[in-house]
């Protein structure tokens, strides 16, 4: 395997792709959103339950490549227990991590395990895979003042 590929497909990513955390629908979730990448057809649903301003429960469902599945899985672990504004900040840091131009991956202490996605920056075509779950989370939180109805 080339070193670039090893950098991208880290064991943590492959593990989370095989057995993702929090991979289920959340019945009666107050917040949810669907994300779709029309380029590759990847679809993801993110479900959220808040306790006041804090993420009490977060799950996802969907199908996609290893990068998008692992990213969604690790995202649910990362934002659990965080406040809504902390989760939003985390997204900004994550986006910076996977798009920054610097060659040597700058790990961000605040990102913890999410730093395994630093290798994505070498693959501009794959950045959307890594951020799909986060965009969907953001959409779900957009109306956190106003829960989406269950139709």
């Amino acid at each position, binding site marked *: 395997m080339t070193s*670039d*590929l090893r950098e991208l497909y880290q064991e943590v990513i492959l593990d989370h792709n095989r057995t993702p955390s929090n991979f289920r629908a959340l019945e009666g979730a107050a917040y949810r959103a669907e994300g779709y990448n029309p380029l*590759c*057809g*990847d679809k993801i649903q993110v479900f959220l339950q808040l306790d006041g301003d804090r993420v009490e429960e977060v799950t996802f469902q969907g*199908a*996609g*490549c290893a*990068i998008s599945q692992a990213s969604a899985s690790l995202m649910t672990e990362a934002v659990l227990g965080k406040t809504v504004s902390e989760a939003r900040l985390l997204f900004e840091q994550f986006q910076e991590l996977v798009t920054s131009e610097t060659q040597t991956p700058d790990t961000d202490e605040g990102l913890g395990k999410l730093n395994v996605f630093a290798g994505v920056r070498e693959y501009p*075509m794959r950045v959307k895979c890594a951020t799909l779950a986060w965009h969907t989370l953001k959409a779900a939180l957009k109306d956190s003042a106003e829960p989406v109805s269950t139709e």
Partner: protein
Amino acid sequence: MSAVKNDASSSAAPIPPFDVARWRRDFPALEQRVHGHPLVYLDNAATTQKPQAVIDAVVRYYREDCSNVHRGVHQLSQRSTLAFEAARERVRAFLGAHHTEEVIFVRGATEGINLVARSFLGPRLQEGDEVLVTAMEHHANIVPWQLVCEEKGAQLAVIPMNDRGEISLDEAEALISPRTKLVAAVHVSNALGTINPVKGLVDAAHQRGIPVLLDGAQAAPHLELDVAALDCEFYVFSGHKVFGPTGIGVLYGKRELLEAMPPYQGGGDMIRSVSFEKTEFNVPPHRFEAGTPNIAGTIGLAAALDYLSGIGLGAVAAYESELLHYATEQLLGVPGVRLIGTAKEKASVASFVIEGVHAHDVGTILDQQGIAVRVGHHCAQPVMDRFGVTSTVRASVSFYNTHDEIDALIGGLEEVLEIFRP
């Protein structure tokens, strides 16, 4: 050499082997390395590489003959007009059409279909009518019809396909009804590689007096075409998939139909006379070619068709067919590979999924080894739905691909398995 002597010697002589190394040398882009590996270009269904002859023809136009067509009396304009109209004749011969004016230059197959949807189908479509397509259409042979159908309250009817990705003529015939106003079918499927029985489809439609459009985007680079023998009303293809430039394509239409069709776009070249009260339109093909055309593109396309004919589509088809057969066998030997599209009659395309690995991950890992394939839904989402997948990996061969390149693909897939199945 006399014919008799020739016959006597050729009956015993073996068919010369296809000299792929020789043809490869004509394609400068194939010589490069990608991520430190020799480029293995297996994305020919998306676009083909260009031979030096095409690149030279385009450069020559811009360096020596650059001028507008059908307008100037000066030397350069005469040259470019001659070259432009010679390209039209070149395309006619390639398609086997009866008349040069049956060849309309468009941006690509997509624009050709849109032109027919707007200028031919639109005016004759009524509420409740149907356009009959196959289950394996590219979005370009679905959406233009849907746009017109929505305006008129008409709809699409779909000829189903079996698990191998084949349609049956009996089922097609059963779906042709008095409501059917057009049959629009793909000649060779971009997602599956299936070669459709288009002659049978045309005959079945004609028995009921229904016109047929064939989408030849994937057929033109691989099969010998004869639109006069096919007898279809319309045929479209794209220049960039037959080794020509992007942004140029062809709509073939039967002369009597084109003559009766209103213009698609308004502008220069498509008119006979204009006043602020009334415009008289030019005759086909010019009626459908508003504005300054893609002159360099048509000249490049003609050079591409010259080049392709120089090799011979018969030889190309035979070599590619053997190469596709080899690729298919090798792919089936890779653990977890499932082929999507196993029709008996196929051209160029090996589409597949690997159990437990998403197509995009396969694409990235192959790219790191210099291997270019297409991953995704191939602008044919209904095909993906039919086979219960969201995307596939598609390797599509051309005559310049080699058996070694297929071996490189298989080696690349072994690397994929190594990463995903430790």
